[in-house]
């Protein structure tokens, strides 16, 4: 009620903007699907498997007060404070991958031998703000 009292003169359109800031942020930091096939990169001549690869990616805004929902360290909040109060050239925290899963790849080596290898951190599975 107080909030309302404070802004009685706002036009209805501003009011909805005003209320919107209390709603769940629309383009919040989250994991986005992205799938590619190695034939697109013309790598399928030597990458035999997998045919498709889903690296995913992180995109979205990082809220000012980053809570435990992102698993962000305290530093993330401090960086926000630096950006707002001390030095705007310091960038705000970014939406980046926090966890990955590995990927198995079967490739043909230049000498014609074949190698199966499991690579670390090839598929983003979780995002965070930091």
């Amino acid at each position, binding site marked *: 009620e107080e909030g309302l009292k404070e802004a009685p003169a706002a036009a209805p359109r501003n009011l909805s903007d005003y209320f919107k800031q209390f709603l769940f942020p629309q383009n919040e930091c989250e994991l986005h699907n992205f799938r590619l096939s190695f034939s697109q*990169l*013309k*790598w399928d*001549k*030597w*990458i*035999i*498997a*997998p045919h*498709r*690869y*889903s690296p995913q990616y992180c995109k979205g805004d990082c809220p000012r007060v980053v*809570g*435990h929902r992102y698993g962000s*360290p*305290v530093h993330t*909040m401090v960086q926000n404070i630096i950006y707002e109060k001390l030095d705007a050239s310091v960038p705000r925290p970014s939406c980046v991958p926090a966890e990955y*899963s*590995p*990927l*198995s*790849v*079967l*490739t*043909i*080596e*230049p*000498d*014609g*031998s*074949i*190698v*199966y*290898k*499991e*690579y*670390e*951190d*090839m*598929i983003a599975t979780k995002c965070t703000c930091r």
Partner: protein
Amino acid sequence: PHSRDRAVSGKSPGFLFAPEDNPHRLHPFLRLPKGVRRGYALLPPLLKVLSDQGRRNWQSESPRLQPDSRALRYMKRLYKMSATKEGIPKANKSHLYNTVRLFTPCSECKHRHRELMKGDIHSVDLLFNLDRVTALEHLLKSVLLYSFDTSVPISSPATCVCHLSIKEYDFSSQVCPSASHSVAFSLHFEFRKRRWVEIDVTSFLQPLIATNRRNIHMAVNFTCLVGDPQHNTEQEGSLNVALVPPSLLLYLNDTSEQAYHRWNSLRHRRKSPVRPRQRDTPLADLVDDLGKENAQSKRASRQRR
């Protein structure tokens, strides 16, 4: 968070490297430091695709040697057994390897010793070039892989004896080196069921690979007699199966940073405790602890008084 050159050298996975390009044509910033290049003597195509020059050169990559179709089929089967459809390594803890390399012999000399032994003898000298095995790939197991074409139905089991000997290079005869030390394996299996026969030669090759020998020269005598000696059935004589020279399979544990370390992620998953109390920010924890400290020091001074 990565320093510039570390990002270039540290985290690029091996399979993104183009093999035969000439690094010098790229912008110095994109070239790997010399030391790193030895291990990754190749430039990552990811970087190439991103550099303008790379984009033009990309189409001109020189052709690769094509592997043997049987070998390819075997490795595809291994891939299906080890990874899910999405390409993620299966979580079964049974295999510790994170790298498997299959080499086909790059040269061979054929010998036929009919008078030496009864049966159909396939004796062949094989040279395997293991240059692709890096110093951080440690051998767990090595297997000689025979493939049989089972188009000719064979009704009864067969007993095969495999004589294996490692060859040292004899410079007097440029073509075929002489034997140095050898070992014999005897196998017993039924053809009906097998397309592939694996002969475990780990103990035999371990010392060579551990001392960074990358050219392995071996002579393999493979003799198969049809029938089952264990059940005293009469051995029907030699086996008339076309034998392709075996491939060499190495199961390796790659300890480099970019390789997936299964036991590491398992430990990591087990280790991560559930937080006893859900706090909004770790800062509150800190404040809480500070508050506690104050309370304790007050209590101590009161007791003293």
